[in-house]
C-alpha cells in the first residue's frame, strides 16, 4: 500500500488531470443536450488541433501563426470528399461545372479522400519545411513566414469560388457513415473522443521517445544538440510534417462534425486562437493544450451569448494577463509548483 502511494506521488500532476478530463468527456453526453454534445465534439477536434500545435510550439519551440492552414486543408479535402459522394456540389454547378474536375478525382473515393485529408497537409508542411529549415529560419521569422502562409491560404480559398466555394466555403457536409447513413450526434461524439484519445496517446509516445527529448532540447539549446551530432534540421522537419498531418486530421474530424468549412477555418484568426488556447493551458505538456482549448472555447460559447461584441477584447485581455502573470499557463503553473516542491525535498535530502 505504501509503495502504491509513493508511486502515485511520483506521477506528474498533469497525468491526473488527463484522467479526470477523459472521465469527464466520457460521461459528458449522459447529462448534456444534443446541441451541447455536438458543440463539445467540435471542441474535441480543436483539442487535436491544439495538440498538433503543442508538438511544434510547446515542445520544439517553433511558434506557428499559420497552423490553421494545415487544419483548413484537412477540412477542405475532407469536406470535398464528402460532398462529392452526392455528385457535383451546388457551388460548382453554379459555375457551369457539370462533372467533378479531373484533379479532384482522388476525392471521389471516400477512403482515399479521407486519407488525403491527412496526407496532403503533411506534404504541404514537408515542402514549406524544407525551405524554412534549410535556410535556418527560426524565432520570430518562423512566426512571420507561417503568418504570411495563413494569409495566402485564406486568400486562395476565398478567391477560388468555383472549386472551393469562395467565402461561403463548403456546406452541408454530413457526419461519418457507419453502416447505412451518417451516425447520430452521440455516436459522432464518441468517434471524435476515440480519435482524440488515439491522437493523445500518439503524442504522448512521441514526446517520450529520444526523438521527443531531442525536440525539447532543440527548444532549449539547438546548437548544443548539433554539437552532440544531431542533424536538428531533420528533426524539425519531421515534427513539422507530423504536426501538419495531425492538424489535417483534426480538420477532417471538425468538418464532419460542424458540417461546413470556409476560409475562416484556415486563416490567421484560427491560427492565432490556437496559439491562445495552448498559451492559456500551458505548452509543452499536452494536457495544457487540451485544458486551454476546452476552457477558452466553452467560455466563448457561453459568454459570447452575453457579451458578443466584447468577446475579441476579452480574449485579448486574457492573453495579455497570461503572458504577463502566468507564462507557463494553467497546467504549466501546476507542474511548476509540483517540481519546485520535489526539488526542495531533493535538496534537503542531499
Amino acid at each position, binding site marked *: 500500500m505504501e509503495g502504491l502511494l509513493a508511486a502515485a506521488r511520483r506521477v506528474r500532476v498533469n497525468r491526473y488531470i488527463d484522467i479526470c478530463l477523459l472521465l469527464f468527456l466520457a460521461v459528458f453526453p449522459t447529462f448534456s443536450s444534443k446541441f451541447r454534445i455536438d458543440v463539445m465534439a467540435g471542441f474535441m477536434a480543436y483539442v487535436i488541433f491544439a495538440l498538433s500545435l503543442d508538438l511544434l510550439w510547446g515542445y520544439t519551440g517553433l511558434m506557428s501563426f499559420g497552423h490553421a492552414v494545415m487544419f483548413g486543408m484537412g477540412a477542405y479535402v475532407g469536406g470535398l470528399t464528402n460532398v462529392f459522394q452526392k455528385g457535383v456540389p451546388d457551388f460548382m454547378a453554379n459555375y457551369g461545372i457539370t462533372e467533378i474536375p479531373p484533379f479532384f478525382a482522388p476525392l471521389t473515393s471516400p477512403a482515399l479522400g479521407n486519407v488525403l485529408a491527412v496526407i496532403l497537409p503533411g506534404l504541404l508542411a514537408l515542402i514549406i519545411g524544407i525551405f524554412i529549415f534549410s535556410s535556418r529560419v527560426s524565432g520570430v521569422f518562423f512566426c512571420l513566414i507561417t503568418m504570411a502562409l495563413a494569409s495566402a491560404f485564406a486568400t486562395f480559398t476565398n478567391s477560388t469560388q468555383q472549386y472551393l466555394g469562395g467565402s461561403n466555403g463548403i456546406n452541408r457536409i454530413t457526419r461519418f457513415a457507419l453502416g447505412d447513413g451518417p451516425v447520430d450526434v452521440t455516436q459522432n461524439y464518441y468517434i471524435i473522443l476515440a480519435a482524440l484519445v488515439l491522437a493523445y496517446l500518439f503524442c504522448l509516445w512521441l514526446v517520450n*521517445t*529520444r*526523438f521527443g*527529448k*531531442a525536440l*525539447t*532540447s532543440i527548444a*532549449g*539549446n539547438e*546548437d*548544443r*544538440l*548539433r*554539437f*552532440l*551530432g*544531431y*542533424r*536538428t534540421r*531533420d*528533426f524539425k522537419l*519531421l515534427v513539422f510534417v507530423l504536426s501538419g498531418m495531425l492538424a489535417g486530421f483534426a480538420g477532417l474530424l471538425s468538418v464532419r462534425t460542424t458540417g461546413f468549412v470556409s476560409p475562416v477555418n484556415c486563416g490567421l484568426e484560427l491560427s492565432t486562437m490556437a496559439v491562445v488556447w495552448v498559451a492559456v493551458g500551458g505548452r509543452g505538456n499536452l494536457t495544457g493544450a487540451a485544458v486551454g482549448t476546452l476552457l477558452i472555447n466553452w467560455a466563448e460559447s457561453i459568454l459570447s451569448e452575453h457579451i458578443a461584441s466584447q468577446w475579441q477584447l476579452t480574449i485579448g485581455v486574457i492573453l495579455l494577463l497570461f503572458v504577463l502573470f502566468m507564462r507557463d499557463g494553467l497546467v504549466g503553473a501546476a507542474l511548476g509548483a509540483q*517540481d519546485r516542491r520535489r*526539488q526542495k525535498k*531533493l*535538496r534537503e535530502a542531499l
Partner: protein
Amino acid sequence: MAILEVRSLAVSFKGFRAIDGVDMDVERGELRVIIGPNGAGKSTLMDLITAKTRPTSGSVIFDGADITGLDISAISSRHGIGRKFQGPNIFGGMTVLENVELALKGHGTLIKALFYRRTRRTLELIAGALERVGLYEKRDLPAGILSHGEKQWLEISMLLAQSPKLMILDEPTTGMTAEETYKTGELIMGLSGEHTIIAAEHDMDFVRQVASTVTVLHQGKVLAEGSIADVERDPRVVAVYLRDDGLESGEGGRA
C-alpha cells in the same frame, strides 16, 4: 603524426581579423591548453575547428580528413569531435542520466531517435560516463539542481558518452571554486592519453596543474608555444599577458 593540423587559418568579421594565420599541430592523445587574454581569439579558434564559424581562409585537417566548414552535426557524429562550451550547457529539465543518454553516440539520426530503447548496454555506457566524473550517484536528480561545478562535469560526461577522438573544452573551470578547479584538472589529466584534448583556459593554476603544451594566442595570432615553463619565461608572453603578475597570483586573465 598529428591528429589535428590547423593550417594558416584566418577569419575576419567585418574587417576585424579575429584569427589571423594560425598554424597548430596537436598530437594524438595530447592535452593542449590554449591561453591568451580576453579577445585573443581562443573561442573563435574553437568555433573554426568545430565548424561553428566558417574560416575566411586556411584549413583544418582532422585525422587525415579535411573538415573545414562541414556541418556541425557531422563534425561530431562522423569525425568524433566533441565540444563543451563555456559555462554549463545542460538540459536542466531532464535528469542527469537523461542528459548523458541524449548525448550517447550513434543515436542522432531520425530513425534511431524514434526507436531508441534503453538497453543494458546503453545503460552501461551511460553509467561509465557518469562514473568518470563522479556523478553516478546523482543520476536520477534533475540536472537543473546540480551545483555549478557538477553541471560542468555533467557536460564533460556528456562528451565522454560520445567517445570522441578529440574533446574541445572551452574554459572548463569557469566559475568553479579552487577545489572544484583542482578536481577538474585531475579529471582532465585522467582523460588525456585516451582522448586528445584541447582546452582554452584563463585559470593559471589549472594550466600549471595539468602542465602540458601551452599555445598562447594574442590578437588572433600564435604568440608562443611550448611547455608552461618555457612560455612563462618568454618575454613576449610576459609583455602582453602575464605582465600584471597574473602568473604568480593565478588571476592573470580572469578579467
